[in-house]
């Protein structure tokens, strides 16, 4: 049995769920729906950033940190972690440090993307042998995938805190300092847009971001699984789920119904798939010679341990998008 409460939220009325749990779940939904979850999103942004930072750290270690710029995402990911945690603790930090660090990280990711394109170009044969050089060269979309956590951090900085009263007016968004240089009309539009984010009305926007993130992550899965010719049939699963999730997110921009029904299903699938994939990757690492005794070596040269979790993160993004309200 399902029913809509007075806020229009689908609520479970199954008696088995304890009232407290049901109440808590409802609270969370309402918080997200109304954009009052700055603290949790700041934490999520910080932790996903920190996590992908670990992956960057060992992947760049594999490349011997031959270019000094390879240190920047490692440093920035830890800065993002600190900013995320402080954003969760302090409202002030959430409005100052968090967006600053996130913005710098985003710029760094864009630069990194450029470097990775150049890295592939510099391999023998360059872009004229795209299949092999994408497989064996620097991971093409990995920097952009890392950028997704910075993007979450940036979003978090515009949200309201959980403690904000749901009945009080959302309050004005403090416009970023750089925006003051823009023409007045653009500033006005930006204010409206940010205000919507602040009220949790940015479903289409987030659905689009989900589509992009899933594309990046799915593409990585595609070429790295293609590398060993899909030896295990299960290696096809993230490719299929990624296609589904991209379709669902793009559909969600187009129709609210898709956002409410298909998007959460596809997202849940992606989360489950990523979690299972994480277990497979972990198993793959322990099965390498030396197993857990040569853990660091095997993590570096075995299947990328955190990559499936980043794919699950895309599912999480989709789930989040499905819970928001749509733009006015």
């Amino acid at each position, binding site marked *: 049995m399902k029913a809509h409460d007075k806020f229009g939220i689908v609520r479970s009325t199954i008696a088995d769920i304890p009232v407290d749990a049901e109440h808590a779940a409802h609270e969370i939904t309402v918080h997200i729906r109304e954009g009052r979850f700055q603290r949790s999103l700041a934490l999520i942004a910080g932790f996903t950033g920190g996590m992908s930072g670990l992956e960057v750290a060992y992947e760049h270690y594999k490349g011997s940190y031959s270019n000094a710029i390879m240190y920047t995402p490692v440093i920035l990911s830890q800065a993002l972690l600190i900013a995320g945690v402080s954003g969760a603790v302090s409202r002030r930090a959430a409005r100052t440090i968090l967006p600053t660090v996130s913005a710098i990280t985003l710029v760094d990711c864009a630069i990194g993307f450029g470097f990775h394109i150049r890295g592939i170009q510099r391999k023998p044969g360059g872009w004229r*042998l795209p299949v092999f050089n994408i497989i064996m060269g620097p991971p093409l979309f990995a920097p952009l995938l890392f950028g997704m956590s910075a993007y979450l951090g940036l979003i978090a900085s515009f949200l309201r805190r959980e403690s904000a009263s749901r009945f009080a007016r959302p309050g004005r968004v403090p416009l970023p300092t750089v925006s003051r240089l823009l023409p007045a009309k653009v500033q006005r539009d930006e204010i409206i847009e940010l205000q919507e984010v602040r009220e949790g009305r940015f479903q289409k926007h987030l659905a689009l971001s989900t589509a992009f993130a899933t594309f990046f992550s799915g593409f990585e899965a595609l070429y790295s699984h293609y590398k*060993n*010719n*899909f*030896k295990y049939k299960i290696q096809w699963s993230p490719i299929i789920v990624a296609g589904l999730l991209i379709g669902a997110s793009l559909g969600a921009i187009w129709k609210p119904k898709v956002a409410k029904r298909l998007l959460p299903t596809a997202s849940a699938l992606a989360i489950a798939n990523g979690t299972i994939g994480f277990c497979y990757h972990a198993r793959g690492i322990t099965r390498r010679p030396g197993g857990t005794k040569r853990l660091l070596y095997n993590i570096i040269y075995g299947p990328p341990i955190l990559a499936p979790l980043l794919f699950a993160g895309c599912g999480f993004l989709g789930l989040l998008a499905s819970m928001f309200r749509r733009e006015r």
Partner: protein
Amino acid sequence: MKTPLFGAFGAPGPKHMLGAMQSIDGRMRKYGNQGEVDFCIVGVGSAGGVLLQRLARAGFSVVGLEAGPLWDTERDWVSDEAGSHKLYWNDLRITGGEHPLTLGANNSGKGVGGGSVHWAAFVPRLHPSDFRVYSEDGVGADWPICYEDLKPYYELLEREIPVSGPAYFPWGDPHGYPYGPHPMGGCGDILINGCTKLGIRVCIGGPVAILAGSHGKRPHCIYRGYCIQGCKVGAKQSTLISHVPNALEHGAEIRDSCMVSRINLARNGSSKSGTVTGVTYFDSQGHEAEQKAKAVIVCGYAIETPRLLLNSACPGFENGLANSSGTLGKYLMAQAGNVVLGRFPELIRMYKAPPAHAMTEEFYETDTKRGFARGFGIQTVGPLPIAFARQMTIAKGAWGWGMRRVMMDYNHWGAIALLGEILPWPDNRLELAAEKDKYGIPVTKVTFNLHDNDKKMIEYGKNKVMEVMSAAGAEEVVQEQRYAHLVGAARMGSDPRTSVVDGFGRTHDIPNLFVCDGSVMPTQGSANPGLTIQALAARTADYLIAQSQFGLKKGAHSSETPRIRYDLSPPDTWGKGVPHLK
């Protein structure tokens, strides 16, 4: 001081190691040579190893006689170029003709595993057109089998080996490989750069029988080089590492350091027919012994197989066993393997990484515009200093101080090679010489001449490879004429008047005498023969198993193609090759 500081170095353990992680405990079933075994295999190399494993696994009593040792990879092999010459067949052989072949190095092997111990492990398949060379181009010969007959065995062996390579190999019958491609070394980069500049498609990271990921009791490649000196890691496949341990587990016996001197025959009255009864051999102590067998399979490769058959001549078979056609020893083939070396301003370090890791077969098929039949491939090679010095002597005439200067420059040189198809000609042959080896067995004299088509192919191919090398940015390009691989001389065919064996390796003349190795190939393509030899061995094994229930001495029961036996593969082939932890 009795013990060194921090204790004594560990002595090698009592175990007989095959690769870094795999050991055989030394207990091997012994049949003794009183009784008759089901199969006697002469030569446990690429084909012999696969046959031994298949037949033992199917439950037959099988003895493998090998002239060389059963290697313990940890004790016997060294990561040193000069120290690895014992892997080759270095006994006396006589070479001749207008273009004499160098014998005894990269075209032979001695010891269990045979040539697969020191091959570079390139494992391309033959193209479908290779099986119809005569009908398509009017040269060479047709095979009695077609590509589709061998294709399932190619696929099976690619899993058993297992082969690392790209997921899409575009030439011949396009296919993919079970393990991922290898990262590139310096020579691979040269080939890729050169080919890409010239718009030639190139295949990267394989196909090569070196593990890109761990498999069973074999660790993955660590790119230390010394592949063709015997891979001590166990990442490179040789039948010694991949098939022999399983054969021993299933009750096969390998008698190493045993030189077979003749095959014994029982004639049917005074007719020109008979069946073989076994082989006579010199055991490791030099004593002559006999092993009786229901069937004998000769897997001695292109020189030793015909030599043994010729040496086994007896009344009724005066020209040698299975030689009623007179083609035994003829149609010997080598591949043109001209090495093109280029000097680069940057470091290449061609000793690093496997020598086999990139190739192109863009020029494989006949192109009438080029003015010759069939074609060639281009592959990476990575000569180590001794081979490099020899090449420089020939290619540049480097000597004395000049040689020293070139050798100081070794790290700046890169090498890629031609692999061109030389057609089978009856005058490229081997026959018995007057000289004898240490056992008193007559040795062979090999005669080899290039013909017009071969010369044109080599000239065109050599120039193409040099063009690729220059396009890759080499400042100086030189080349050395060389030959690689050695097949033919006991070729298969459907007509007993022009061939020695049938499509399954059974000799036309003697029903229970088989030949299974590179010598049965009627043509060779421009592909390295290793995979084809192993695939043919697996196919012959299936045939032997299917036919043995009717008794092999009676001849072919039916000419039907036997069912492919997937259940006879070594373990780990189908279990996704989960690595065993140490």
